[in-house]
C-alpha cells in the first residue's frame, strides 16, 4: 500500500471552509444549541486526537500514521506507517490490518517541558504482531518526532482470521490512551477474539492498563494476586472509550457489546468487567474457535435480550463482584466507541455530562444508531439519570473519537474522514 500524502494533504486541509448552522441540540429546553465547523476532511479513518493548550491537534489515521494540525490550520505529517509516503519519518513495523492499526494518542501533561506524546499502534516487531504503546518526542517546531520508546510492547494482536463475525485478523484491540487526573497513563485494550484473554492474569488484552510514563505499573494498581501489575481493570471485551469525570476524577469506560449491550462502566481499581467468553463456562458448551463472544447464534439476528442470557457482557452470575454498567445502551450493540466529559459553563446544563460516540452497526434488525449520546451519570456511577441524543448540526457519522479541545468545544472524528468541531452557543 503506497499512499500519496501530498494529495491527501491538499484535500485534508480545509480549516477555512467552516459552516455554522445553529440548531437546538435536543428537545430539552436546557440543552445548548450547537454550531459546527469541519476542521479536517479527506482523512483516512481518523482514529484519535490530542490537543496542546494553544489548539495544536495531534491526530492519527489508522493505516497512515500520526500528523499534527497547527493552530494556523496547516497540517504536518509526523510519523508514517509501513507503505506510506510523505512523512518525515516512517516506522516500517507499524501496520494496519482489519480493525488494527494506529489508534489512540495522548499528550503528556508536562509537554511544555518534556515534548512527549504517546501513541498506540499495531506493530510487527515481535511475531505474530502486537499492539504497542509508544512514547515519542516532538520537535520544538512540531515538524518531526524522535526518540521512540515502546513503553508497553505486549498487548495481544489477533494474527489470523477466525470463524466469527468481524473475524478477520486484527480484531478487538481497544485502543484509547489517556492521561488521568492522577497523572498516570490509562490504556484500553481488547479481547482479540480469544476466549482466554479477558480473564487472563497475564495476557494484557481485555484490560484497562495503568502505567507511568515509562510503562511501569502504578504502585497502587490493585488487580488480584498473580495478575500483571499493570492491570487496573480486567474482564473487558473491547474498550475504545475512557474519560475521567471532572468532579472527582472517576474513570469511566465505553465498551462495544457482542450483538447486545454496549456498556458505560465506572471503573473500580482492580475490578472485573465480567466478560468471559471462554467455552464451557456459565453453562455454555463448545464455541467456534474457543470463543463464545457472539453465541448462541453468531451469524443471525436474534432478540438481544435472549443473547444476554447466554453470553452476558457483565456476567454477575459467575462474577458477583463484577463492575456493573451504569448504562447498557438499552440492551443494544451499535458500536459504542469513544467517551469524553463536557466541561465548562459554555455547555450549560450539559456541563459535567458524559458524551459517547456511537458508530452504528445495524446487525440483525438493530437500528444503525450513529449518534452522540449525552449521559447524566448518577453520582455513584451505578446508573444513568438521563440519556439524551445530541441533535447534530451536521450529518451523523461513525463517531470514532470525541475529545474536548482547549477552546471548550467538542471535537468529533468520524471514520468517514472528517474531524468536526462542535461548539455550544
Amino acid at each position, binding site marked *: 500500500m503506497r499512499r500519496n500524502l501530498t494529495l491527501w494533504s491538499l484535500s485534508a486541509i480545509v480549516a477555512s471552509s467552516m459552516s455554522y448552522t445553529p440548531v437546538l441540540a435536543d428537545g430539552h429546553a436546557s440543552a445548548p444549541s450547537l454550531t459546527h465547523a469541519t476542521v479536517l476532511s479527506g482523512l483516512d*479513518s481518523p482514529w484519535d486526537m490530542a490537543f496542546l493548550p494553544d489548539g495544536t491537534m495531534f491526530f492519527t489515521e489508522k493505516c497512515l500514521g500520526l500528523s499534527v494540525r497547527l493552530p494556523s490550520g496547516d497540517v504536518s505529517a509526523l510519523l508514517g506507517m509501513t507503505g506510506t509516503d510523505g512523512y518525515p519519518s516512517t516506522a516500517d513495523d507499524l501496520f494496519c490490518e482489519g480493525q488494527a492499526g494506529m489508534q489512540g494518542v495522548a499528550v503528556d501533561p508536562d509537554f511544555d517541558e518534556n515534548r512527549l506524546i504517546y501513541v498506540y499502534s499495531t506493530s510487527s516487531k515481535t511475531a505474530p504482531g502486537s499492539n504497542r504503546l509508544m512514547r515519542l518526542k516532538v520537535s520544538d517546531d512540531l515538524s518531526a518526532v524522535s526518540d521512540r520508546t515502546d513503553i508497553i510492547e505486549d498487548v495481544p494482536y489477533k494474527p489470523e482470521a477466525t470463524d466469527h*463475525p468481524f473475524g478477520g485478523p486484527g480484531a478487538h484491540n481497544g485502543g484509547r490512551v489517556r492521561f488521568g487526573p492522577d497523572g498516570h497513563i490509562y490504556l484500553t485494550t481488547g479481547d482479540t477474539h480469544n476466549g482466554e484473554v479477558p480473564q487472563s492474569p497475564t495476557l494484557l488484552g481485555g484490560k484497562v492498563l495503568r502505567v507511568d510514563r515509562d510503562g511501569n505499573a502504578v504502585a497502587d494498581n490493585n488487580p488480584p494476586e498473580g495478575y500483571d501489575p499493570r492491570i487496573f481493570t480486567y474482564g473487558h471485551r473491547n474498550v475504545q472509550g475512557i474519560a475521567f469525570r471532572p468532579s472527582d476524577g472517576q474513570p469511566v469506560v465505553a465498551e462495544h457489546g457482542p450483538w447486545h449491550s454496549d456498556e458505560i462502566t465506572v471503573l473500580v481499581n482492580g475490578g472485573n468487567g465480567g466478560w468471559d467468553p471462554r467455552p464451557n463456562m456459565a453453562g455454555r458448551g463448545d464455541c467456534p474457535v474457543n470463543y463464545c463472544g*457472539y453465541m448462541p447464534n453468531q*451469524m443471525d439476528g436474534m432478540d438481544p435480550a435472549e443473547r444476554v442470557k447466554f453470553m452476558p457482557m457483565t456476567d454477575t452470575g459467575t462474577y458477583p463482584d463484577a463492575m456493573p454498567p451504569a448504562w447498557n445502551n438499552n440492551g443494544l450493540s451499535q458500536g459504542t466507541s469513544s467517551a469524553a466529559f463536557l466541561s465548562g459553563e459554555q455547555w450549560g446544563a450539559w456541563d459535567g455530562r458524559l458524551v459517547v460516540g456511537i458508530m452504528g452497526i*445495524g*446487525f440483525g434488525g438493530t437500528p444503525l444508531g450513529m449518534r452522540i449520546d449525552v449521559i447524566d451519570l448518577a453520582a455513584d456511577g451505578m446508573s444513568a439519570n438521563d440519556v439524551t441524543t445530541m441533535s447534530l448540526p451536521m450529518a451523523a457519522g461513525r463517531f470514532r473519537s470525541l475529545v474536548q479541545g482547549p477552546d471548550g468545544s467538542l471535537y468529533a472524528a468520524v*471514520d*468517514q*474522514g472528517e474531524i468536526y468541531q462542535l461548539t455550544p452557543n
Partner: protein
Amino acid sequence: MKKLQLLTICAAFALTASEAAGGDAAAGEARYAETCINCHGKAGKGMASFPSIIGRDADYIAGRLMQYRAREMVGPNSAIMMSWAEKLSDEEIANLADYISTTFQ
C-alpha cells in the same frame, strides 16, 4: 447437499449477470445512500475495517450481494453483510451493482 449448494451458487451468478446488466443506477444511488454509504462511504473507498469497492464491476458486486443474501460466508464481514443483503430484492441488487460499478471507478 453439496450439489444443492453448487446449484444455488450457479443460479445466483446466472441471475447476477442478467440483473446487473439491466440495473437502474439512479435507483441504485438511492439504495446505496440508504444501505451502504455508512460503511463503504460516499466514494466507495471504505473505512475502518470495511473494504473499498472502487473499481469493482457489476457482476462482481451483484455476485457478492447474491452470495451474502444466500448466506454464504465470504470474508470476515459476512455476518453484517448478510444482515443487510437479506433486505435486498433482485432488482435492488442490480441497481446497486450498476450504480457502484459505474460511479466508483
